[in-house]
């Protein structure tokens, strides 16, 4: 039996508390110009040294937002291999509000490669694709 005094204390809270499930997962990610990048499909946490005994002074922290083809695993369970996720490092996150705003342009992120590919190879090649509608 563990005495209740041995239980790890929750880390001291400074600033805004975010619920990973409620405030981060499935949120839209926008760049500073309001261009959608992707949605938050999963989170990457830092590995604690010892998973059994978490050290209250150095808790795992969110190191990156992950995005990728998660639908199958979200519906049927299981987990995708890490290599299939695209990382958006937490250090570029500017404001986790009702949308997660990142501080860098969408075009500079790996997460929008599919958008760029489709734009360069298909949509941009159809006449009128690069012009404003009239």
């Amino acid at each position, binding site marked *: 039996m563990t005495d209740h005094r041995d239980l790890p204390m929750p880390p001291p809270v400074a600033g805004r508390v975010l619920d990973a499930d409620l405030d981060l997962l*499935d949120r839209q990610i926008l760049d500073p110009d309001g261009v959608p990048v992707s*949605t938050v499909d999963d989170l990457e946490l830092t590995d604690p040294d010892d998973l059994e005994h978490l050290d209250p002074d150095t808790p795992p922290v969110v190191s990156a937002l992950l995005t990728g083809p998660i639908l199958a695993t979200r519906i049927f369970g299981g987990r995708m291999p890490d290599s299939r996720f695209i990382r958006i490092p937490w250090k570029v996150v500017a404001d986790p509000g009702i949308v997660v705003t990142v501080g860098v342009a969408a075009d500079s992120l790996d997460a929008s490669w599919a*958008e760029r590919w489709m734009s360069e190879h*298909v949509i*941009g090649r159809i006449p009128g694709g690069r012009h404003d*509608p009239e």
Partner: protein
Amino acid sequence: MKGLFAVALGVLTAIGGFVDIGDLVTSSVVGSRFGLTLAWVLVLGTVGICLFAQMSGRVAAVSGRATFEIIRERLGARLAVANLSASFLINLLTLTAEIGGIALAMQLASSISPGLWFPVAAFAVWIVIWRVRFSILENVTGLLGLALVVFAVAVFFLHPDWSALGSQLLQQPSPHTDESPATYWYYAVALFGAAMTPYEVFFFSSGAIEEKWKPKDLAQSRVNVLVGFPLGAILSLSIAACAAIVLLPKGIAVTSLYETALPIAQAFGKIGLIVAILGFVAATFGASLEVTLSSGYTLAQFFGWPWGKFRRPAHASRFHAAMILSLVVALGILLTGVDPVQVTEISVVFSAIALPLTYLPILIVANDPKYMGDHVNGRVTNVVGLIFLGIILVASIAAIPLMIVTGAGA
């Protein structure tokens, strides 16, 4: 004029929801079989769509979030993908029906077989979405769709027996002994579902963002809803009334757009028919635009892609690719030779799944001060919203059994 155009979004949304090809025929079918005994469903559905469209428009204007982004955020990927699959299938089937509807309307005008019009119609829809600005698109189709007002005028020119028509409004369920109660309720659910189709709120809320509505535009949003949807309902009701006056006594069954237009021909002759056909083309074309854009909006908002007609196509490439693909698939379905009108009937089943999953997240977010600040729902709105959510749930549970029991209203 500026005031007239200010309600264009509401009018176009409502035309797509209330007088698209499925409704043009369904209203007529219902009128010719049940008279006006189902008019109360239309009123109920109109109140419901006004309530939730206004809520989704308010959320869009205040928080800048369109409806499907909210659905994903609030339901999570798993439930949201159930909604996405159902909504997208409805969109695809409706789009198929609408493109078919344009072709059928063009056939009435030109006598050229609809098979030849399918590709032309699909291409025309694409080119408008590709090149025409959102504001022009909504104004032109919204205005031309008003040609359908001819049905409302015709009701008066047909000199109906008003007291007989009025008594139908209160007679329940059906004046005809040969229609079973199950069939009556099947059409009640179908009419209710058609009035509250989810793509209307997807389109309306995304349109609010296309038009860059802000909290100061909330009054405009309200006017859009309160003018557009009741107008659509009145047009839909007029079509049913025309059918009840002309087709019901003679026992003419509505099987195509041709019978829908018959009462107009009787009231106004050739000129009326031309106006009605213009209205048919505008309404089906407007609905095609609305549904195509909705397919793009739902997919892009679910996956977090850039979307919107305010961006160049190259800057919303997957959004445009999704819409092109939808049009190609719809055209493919049409070319197999299915009856476009029957296609909409099938979509009622999928509608059943999507309705509650669409309206619940809107209600939740409209109460979240993080999104809405001071503009959260009032108590009355919440009570009425919850009541409607209950009705929607009952309708959606009843839809599939009723469809099986009645053989889809046969």
